[in-house]
């Protein structure tokens, strides 16, 4: 291997990322080539400088304590079931069944509210942002390919010719740590965000199709082809429904 090829591998070598055979070969080269050995030493010193300089910020101990307490509180606020043996068995079964039903309903409602709230925040963030989209285009054939490799799925963007909607662009968005697509459409002066995630990465308890209102925004959601769609905006519910229909029929 040429001298230049070895120089090109020095960073990966110092990062411990070379295959072991290559590592040994480069080790041998460094013993024989003073120039590469000196360069290797420089880069190693550079790595050390960055390593030390990068450890810059220390948290307030009070913050650590607060976080730790929040984790502990999460544990201790869970219901203790230890007193249950005092009850008669049938009562226990009844309570369990009733409790489970209420709990399931509440959990579902709380989770749905959390997701709607998070989506509303994302939409408001988009409205407030100076750069609301990462790919600016009214052309669906530009927007769709832009997402390739950035999100782990593909989806169809509707043909908008003849409709009152205009495509503004798109960006990658995260919901509960899962990457997805956010498409921004405009109708008259209203902006509408369409969020698309994999159904399995954002499991929800929404019915297959649902309309709702959240903080003065309207929201339409449905699942289709393993994907979960959310359409949110302050346009009229009819407009949202019309856009949803276009998305559902997109090819």
């Amino acid at each position, binding site marked *: 291997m040429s001298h*230049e090829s070895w*120089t*090109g591998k020095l*960073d*990966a070598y110092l*990062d*411990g*990322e070379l295959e072991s055979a290559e590592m040994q070969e480069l080790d041998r080269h460094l013993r024989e080539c003073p*120039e590469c050995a*000196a*360069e290797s030493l*420089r*880069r190693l*010193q*550079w*790595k050390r*400088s*960055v*390593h*030390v*300089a*990068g*450890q*810059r*910020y*220390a*948290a*307030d101990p009070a*913050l*650590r304590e*607060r*976080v*730790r307490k*929040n*984790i*502990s509180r*999460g*544990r201790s606020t*869970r219901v*203790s*079931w230890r007193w*249950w043996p005092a009850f008669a*068995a049938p009562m*226990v*079964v009844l309570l*369990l069944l009733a409790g489970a039903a209420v709990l399931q309903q509440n959990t579902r409602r709380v989770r749905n509210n959390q997701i709607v709230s998070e989506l509303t*925040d*994302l939409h408001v*963030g988009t409205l*407030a*942002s*100076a*750069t609301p989209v*990462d790919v600016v285009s009214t052309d669906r054939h530009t927007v769709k390919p832009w997402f390739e*490799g950035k999100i782990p799925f593909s989806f169809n963007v509707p043909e908008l010719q003849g409709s009152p909607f205009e495509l503004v662009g798109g960006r990658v*968005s*995260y919901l*509960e*740590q899962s*990457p997805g697509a956010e498409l921004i459409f405009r109708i008259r002066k209203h902006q509408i965000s369409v969020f698309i995630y994999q159904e399995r990465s954002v499991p929800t308890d929404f019915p297959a199709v649902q309309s709702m209102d959240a903080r003065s925004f309207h929201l339409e959601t449905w699942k289709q082809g393993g994907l979960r769609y959310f359409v949110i905006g302050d346009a009229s519910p009819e407009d949202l429904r019309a856009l949803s229909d276009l998305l559902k029929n997109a090819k």
Partner: protein
Amino acid sequence: MRRSLVYSMCVAEERSAAVFEQLAMPLFDRLYNFAHWLSQNRDEADDLVQETYAKALKGFSSFEPGTNFKAWIFRILRNTFLNSRTGLNAATVPLELQDDDPALPVESATPETILIDRASQRVVQEAIGELPVLYREVLLLCEVEEMSYQEIAASLAIPVGTVMSRLSRARRRLRESVQKKLQRSTP
């Protein structure tokens, strides 16, 4: 039978939170340092870390035992940052930062790399802080957190090849920036 099942589930949940605490709290200082580097603001870093822990605890059941917890929780922190106001602005990728740029020429020994030896910690810190966030995060995960390329790829949800190209550009930019700062400070 039913009672013992529910009781077992509650105990399991308690154990799960205890396991979470054992895994997550030792990473607190590292997560905080990374949060502060990303947000460049103490208050935002505080919020970011608290939100990260809350989200991670809530989603702990989705963490697959045996996989990399550190990469998992750093990914939550990074995604939380990206969805914050600062993150939304910071993560917009200028054209010059696109990952499909042709590879940069191989670095070689030049006077500026030698100058780095003299660089004070403050100059390096200033230069790291000025890097675009996409470069800053990959550099910090590699050099400070000493993560492997694979772990960085998992934390940032990008391919290993992208990690390597961003890292190479981040190093080059940092070196150039430090060199300029040193030149300015030398009469």
